[in-house]
C-alpha cells in the first residue's frame, strides 16, 4: 500500500511538531523516519496511523483519503516502542486479539484463529512461548510478539515506533537484521521511526531525514550518507569535521586559518559552514599557509585505518565542535610520524560548503 502525506502540520500548544510536511512513500518498501528527538518523526508516524490527527493536511492510504478515518478502519499495524502487550493475556491470546475482536460476520472460526496464530508465532520464531505471559519474556521476545500481533490482522502497512529503542545493543543488532529479513519475505510496506542513523542506514530501503518538523532529505541510505543535501544532513549522519567561517577568495577563513575550498560560485564575505568526513580530511605538517591548526590529542590504532583525534585551536573553536577526526592510512601515518600534543594543520580535498543560513 502506498502512503501519501500532503501538507501535514501539527502543533502541540506553541510547539510546532510538524510544519507543512509532504511525503510520498511507494508500496512495498521499508522506510526509516530518521531524526533527532523532538523532530516530529513519531508524530508523523502516529498521524499516518490515525493515533493522532493533523491540524492541517491529508493522509492518503492506497489512493484514498484517510485523514478522518479512525485508526480502527485504516488497516495499519502499529508496533510500540514499549511493546504495549496486554499483560493479562498469554502470548497466544495477544496475537489472537486482532482476530477475536473482529465483528462476528468477519471473525474466522476458532480453528482458523489457532492455525493462524501458530503460523505467526512460527514466523517470529517464538511458537514455543505461546502459553507464557508477557512478563515472562525478554525485551527482544516481547517486541517480536508485538510484531506478530500487528501482523495478525493482515495490515496493509506496518508502522513501527522506535521498535528497538528499549533494547540493548546486541539484541538491537540482531532484531534489525531479523526485521530486514522479515520484510524481504513479506514485502509489506513498512515505516519505522528511529533516531539511530546506523539503524536507519543499515535496514531501510529509503531514509526520510527530518529535523524540527521538516523533511531535510529523502533518499537511499547511500545517497543520504554520500550526498547530504543540507548542512543538517551532513552534521547528523556519520562522523564529520565542521568548520565555520567566511569566504575569502579561494579559501574559507576559519579564525586565523585559511581552508581551501576549490569552488568558484561563492561571493566574498558570505558566512559558510564547511564539512568534511574523516576519510576526506588530511593532516599536513610544516608551514604552507593553509589548513586549520589543531593539536594531536589521541592516535587510535585499533582498526584497519588509524583514527587521529585532534583538538581544535582556540580560534577554530568558534565552530561548534571542539574535536576533529582524521582517518590516516598506515603508510601516511608512518610518513607523518605524529606525536601526541604536536601542532599540525588539517585540510580537505573534498570540502562541502553550505551557506550559514541554509
Amino acid at each position, binding site marked *: 500500500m502506498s502512503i501519501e502525506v500532503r501538507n501535514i502540520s501539527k502543533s502541540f500548544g506553541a510547539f510546532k511538531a510538524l510544519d507543512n510536511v509532504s511525503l510520498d512513500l511507494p508500496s512495498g518498501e521499508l522506510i526509516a523516519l530518521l531524526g533527532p528527538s523532538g523532530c516530529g518523526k513519531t508524530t508523523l508516524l502516529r498521524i499516518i496511523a490515525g493515533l493522532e490527527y493533523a491540524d492541517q493536511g491529508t493522509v492518503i492510504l492506497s489512493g484514498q483519503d484517510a485523514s478522518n478515518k479512525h485508526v480502527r478502519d485504516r488497516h495499519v499495524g502499529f508496533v510500540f516502542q514499549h511493546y*504495549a502487550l496486554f499483560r*493479562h493475556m498469554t502470548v497466544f491470546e495477544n496475537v489472537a486479539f486482532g482476530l477475536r475482536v473482529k465483528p462476528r460476520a468477519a471473525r474466522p472460526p476458532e480453528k482458523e484463529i489457532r492455525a493462524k496464530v501458530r503460523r505467526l508465532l512460527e514466523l517470529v520464531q517464538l511458537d514455543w512461548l505461546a502459553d507464557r505471559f508477557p512478563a515472562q519474556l525478554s525485551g527482544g521476545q516481547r517486541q517480536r510478539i508485538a510484531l506478530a500481533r500487528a501482523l495478525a490482522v493482515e495490515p496493509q502497512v506496518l508502522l513501527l515506533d522506535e521498535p528497538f529503542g528499549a533494547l540493548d545493543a546486541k539484541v538491537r543488532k540482531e532484531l534489525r537484521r531479523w526485521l530486514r529479513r522479515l520484510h524481504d519475505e513479506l514485502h509489506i510496506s513498512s515505516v519505522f521511526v528511529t533516531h539511530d542513523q546506523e539503524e536507519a542506514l543499515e535496514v531501510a530501503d529509503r531514509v526520510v531525514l527530518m529535523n524540527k518538523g521538516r523533511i531535510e532529505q529523502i533518499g537511499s541510505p547511500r545517497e543520504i550518507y554520500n550526498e547530504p543535501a543540507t548542512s543538517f544532513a551532513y552534521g547528523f549522519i556519520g562522523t564529520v569535521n565542521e568548520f565555520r567561517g567566511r569566504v575569502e577568495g579561494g579559501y574559507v577563513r576559519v579564525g586565523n586559518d585559511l581552508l581551501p575550498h576549490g569552488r568558484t560560485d561563492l561571493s566574498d564575505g558570505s558566512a559558510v559552514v564547511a564539512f568534511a568526513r574523516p576519510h576526506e580530511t588530511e593532516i599536513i605538517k610544516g608551514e604552507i599557509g593553509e589548513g586549520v591548526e589543531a593539536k594531536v590529542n589521541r592516535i587510535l590504532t585499533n582498526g584497519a585505518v588509524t583514527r587521529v583525534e585532534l583538538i581544535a585551536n582556540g580560534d577554530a573553536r568558534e565552530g561548534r565542535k571542539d574535536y576533529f577526526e582524521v582517518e590516516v592510512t598506515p603508510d601516511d601515518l608512518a610518513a607523518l610520524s605524529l606525536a601526541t600534543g604536536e601542532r599540525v594543520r588539517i585540510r580537505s580535498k573534498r570540502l562541502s560548503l553550505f551557506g550559514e543560513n541554509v
Partner: protein
Amino acid sequence: MAYAHARRVLPGFGLSLGFTLAYLSLIVLIPLSAVFIKSAGMGWQAFLDAATGPRVVASYKLSFGTSLLAAAINVVFGLLLAWGLVRYTFPGKKLVDALIDLPFALPTAVAGIALTAIYAKNGWVGQLFEPFGIKIAFTPIGILIALIFIGLPFIVRTVQPILEDLDAEFEEAAASLGATRLQTFRRVVFPTLLPALLTGFALAFARAVGEYGSVIFIAGNIPFVSEITPLMIITKLEQYDYEGATAVASVMLIVSFLLLLVINGLQAWTSRRTGREA
C-alpha cells in the same frame, strides 16, 4: 554450620517474620480470639440459640446482603469516578479529588445524621421519592445508601493508581488491532483493573459489615426489617448478655473472614494472570 544454610541477600528475615507475627497477634489475633473464648464458655446449645435466633438471622441477611450490594455498587461508580479523575482535567479537579476522602474523615455518626436528614420523608431528597411511595430512610434502602457512602473512597483510592499507570498505549494498540471502544474496555482495560477492583471491593465490604455509626441513624432499627448485626451485638451487650453478643460476633467474624478469604483468593488469581506476581 550456621553459614551453610540461610545465606540470604536480604537480612533480617527471622526478625521481620517474628515481628510481623507478634504484632499481628497482639493487635488483631488476641482480641479476636477473646471473642471465641468467651463464646466457647456458653455451651453449644446456648451458642446456637444466641447466634441463630430469627431476629439475629434476619440481621445477618441484612448486614451481609446490603454490604455486598453496597460494595458492588461502589465498584461500578467508584471506577467511573476514578476514571474521570485520572483521564480528564477539569477545573476544580483537585477539590473533587479531596472530596473523595471525606467519608474517611467524617465521624460516622455525623454522616448518619446528615444522611437521615436528607433522605427522610421531608428531607431534600426523601421528599422527591415520597410521592412514589418509596421510603429511603428507616428502610434497608437507607442502610444501603449509608454503606455506599462510607465505602466509596476504598474503590476510588485502590483503582486510581492502577488507572494512572495504565498507559494509553494499551488502548491505542487495541484500537489499531480493530477493537471498538467497548471491546477495548472489556478485554484490555477492565481485566487490568480487576485485581484492584477486587481489593477495593474487599475493603469496602469489610468496612460496610463492621459499620455502625452511620447506619443506626438512617436504619430506623425495625426488628426483622432494618436491624443490622452490629446493632444486635450492641443490643445484647446493653442487656448484659455478653455471651450472646460474642456468639453473634463470632458468627460475623467467621463469615466475614471466609468472604474476605475468597475475595483475596480471586484477587491473587487475577493478578497472577496479569503477570504481576509471576
